[in-house]
């Protein structure tokens, strides 16, 4: 008897094991996301942000039940190569991912310079590529159908600022627009002109300057004579710094001023000291925002997990990369198919809330996302206008220089 019980147990165990194996086999259905990203070379620093972001998001999706397609559950899997920061190698590796590794979908590399050629591979083989590392319009103005990007475009840099400006009390009526004559800042200015028109803010000054400009006194003399409520400045951190300091010396007092670059960086605020106070800046994402969705309930939660696992603070590159993986989860479930063309259409019509903000793409494939408007208040960055509403009370109008302590 004893022996037969033993045998039965063994038999049951065997059946159990077999069942488990069958289940496991079923569960090993995977969706492979492939990418070549810089892990060595000059973009290694930012490349690591994306590798870590992809890894963490894939693990989180799998932990929370994977991706469901047609009643079946799939796990996500990553297939990553190192492009050594070389655009030519990147193209070769992406071709290899598509033709011989036969990955299901593509995630992007880092920087526009590499994304531009790499995205041509995706387009050629009609495999979607969702990327979070390239914002240049050159990626999106070629009429490609399979390339999607989650970094906001230059034209929208001042979207949140303009929206906030007209909703302040008293609302902003006039604006000055000053931008460096580099391609990116010219795009920012082009978009800003449209925005000012759309939100009926009168533009009283519109000039470009050379990025190497140190002395803004003459520019400031003219701006001062126009007395605008709002000043928008697109340029380098050094330009923003000079502009603010010389405004103080020239006693230029707008109600609000916003800079594309500078306010979010620590050395900028340190160099300016108290003069930086009340300046507005923009950033696509901040780690302590209360936005979130499925998989990651909030940006704050995401940042905490990220820091615990990788030992450094997540920035907007990381959040953008995480959003790319989530796009696939949501789009595949929406399409209920692994067919590249169907998933592509699902991505194009996607509209979801994530830790990174609302993910919804423009017809050209770039995300329709504004920047978060931040203000320096007592030396700290305070997100004041996030996703179409005020998140904190802005200090407005800015106190005049003569009234500041």
């Amino acid at each position: 008897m004893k022996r037969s019980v033993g045998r039965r147990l063994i038999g049951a165990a065997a059946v159990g094991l077999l069942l488990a194996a069958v289940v496991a086999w079923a569960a090993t259905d995977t969706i492979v996301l492939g990418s070549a990203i810089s892990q060595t070379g000059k973009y290694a620093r930012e490349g690591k942000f994306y590798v870590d972001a992809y890894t963490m998001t894939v693990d989180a999706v799998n932990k929370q039940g994977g991706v469901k397609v047609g009643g079946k559950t799939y796990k996500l899997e990553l297939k990553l190569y190192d492009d050594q920061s070389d655009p030519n190698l990147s193209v070769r590796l992406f071709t290899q991912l598509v033709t011989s590794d036969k990955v299901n979908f593509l995630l992007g590399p880092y920087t526009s310079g590499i994304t531009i050629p790499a995205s041509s591979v995706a387009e050629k083989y009609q495999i979607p590529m969702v990327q979070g590392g390239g914002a240049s319009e050159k990626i999106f103005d070629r009429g490609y159908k399979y390339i999607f990007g989650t970094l906001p475009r230059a034209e929208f840099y001042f979207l949140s600022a303009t929206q906030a400006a007209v909703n302040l009390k008293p609302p902003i009526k006039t604006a000055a627009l000053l931008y460096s004559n580099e391609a990116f800042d010219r795009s920012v200015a082009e978009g800003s002109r449209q925005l000012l028109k759309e939100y009926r803010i009168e533009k009283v000054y519109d000039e470009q300057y050379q990025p190497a400009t140190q002395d803004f006194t003459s520019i400031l003399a003219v701006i001062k004579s126009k007395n605008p409520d709002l000043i928008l400045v697109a340029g380098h951190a050094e330009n923003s710094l000079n502009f603010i300091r010389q405004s103080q010396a020239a006693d230029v007092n707008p109600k609000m001023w916003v800079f594309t670059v500078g306010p979010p960086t620590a050395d900028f605020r340190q160099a300016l000291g108290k003069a930086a106070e009340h300046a507005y800046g923009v950033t696509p994402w901040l780690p302590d925002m209360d936005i979130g969705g499925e998989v990651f309930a909030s940006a704050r939660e995401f940042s905490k997990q990220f820091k615990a696992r990788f030992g450094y603070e997540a920035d907007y590159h990381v959040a953008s990369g995480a959003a790319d993986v989530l796009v696939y989860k949501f789009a595949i479930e929406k399409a209920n198919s692994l067919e590249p063309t169907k998933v592509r259409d699902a991505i194009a019509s996607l509209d979801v809330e994530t830790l990174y903000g609302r993910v919804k793409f423009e017809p050209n494939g770039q995300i329709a996302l504004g920047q978060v408007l931040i203000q320096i208040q007592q030396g700290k960055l305070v997100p004041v206008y996030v996703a179409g509403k005020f998140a904190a009370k802005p200090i407005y109008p800015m106190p005049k220089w003569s009234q500041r302590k």
Partner: protein
Amino acid sequence: MLILQVLINGILLGGLYGIMALGMSLIWGVMNIVNLAHGALIMLGAYITFWAFTLLGWDPFLSLPVTVALLFVYGYLLQRFVLNLIVRAQLFITLLITFGIEVVMINLARILWSSDLRQVTPAYAGSNFSVGGLTVPYVRLWVFVTTIVLSVLFLLLMERTRLGRAIRATSQELRAARLTGIPVARIYAVTFGLGAALAGAAGTLWGMLFPITPTMGGALTLKSFVVAVLGGLGTMMGPIVGGLVLGLAESFSSTYVGPTYPNAISFGLLVLILIFRPTGVLGRREGG
């Protein structure tokens, strides 16, 4: 009103350009070295001021003599032990070695101070006064006054002292100077020291108005070069006049032509001067 404001802005900026170029013009005129490390010397002066301000809490105007003295010693040693090796070499070699010095200095600055933007911000940095609708920043005014004082001191040194006469003699006729017993090697070192000291002073003043970075020097070398040529080599007042011309040209072109034009106008001016008055605004005629 705007035109007066622009005029004031141009003059105040021009003074700073003048003192920037004074040292370069001196070294160029006396030793026939176009010192490509001039901007790096200005950068060094700015960082010394930055350190004095942040670590010791010294006001930049107080630390100015210290910066000048340190840069003099640095310049003296640099000439004595490095540049002296090539003092008779062709122009190309001197360009190469001063360029090399610049590269070394920039990278040392990166290690010492990192590439972060730095700024010297005394409490009065942003203060100003208004006269009849015109705004004059105090710091720029004091920077201008300091420039004038330093230039006058420098002029007195060159015109009224034995040392100044020796420097001018060396510059004008090397062989005769040597025959009269002027220690030419030491005069060269002192000259380079003086040039570096003036660059250091310019650095202190620059750092009160603009951000300090390890790479700030390149553009300043170029600007000093333009100013030195505009004003005329071999004249003591030349760089000051050249600085004012450049400051006003930039200020007016930025206001009335557009903020992207100052460089085009400045270099256009340089070309015109080289065509019509090759020796500069105040320069002597060749062989005069």
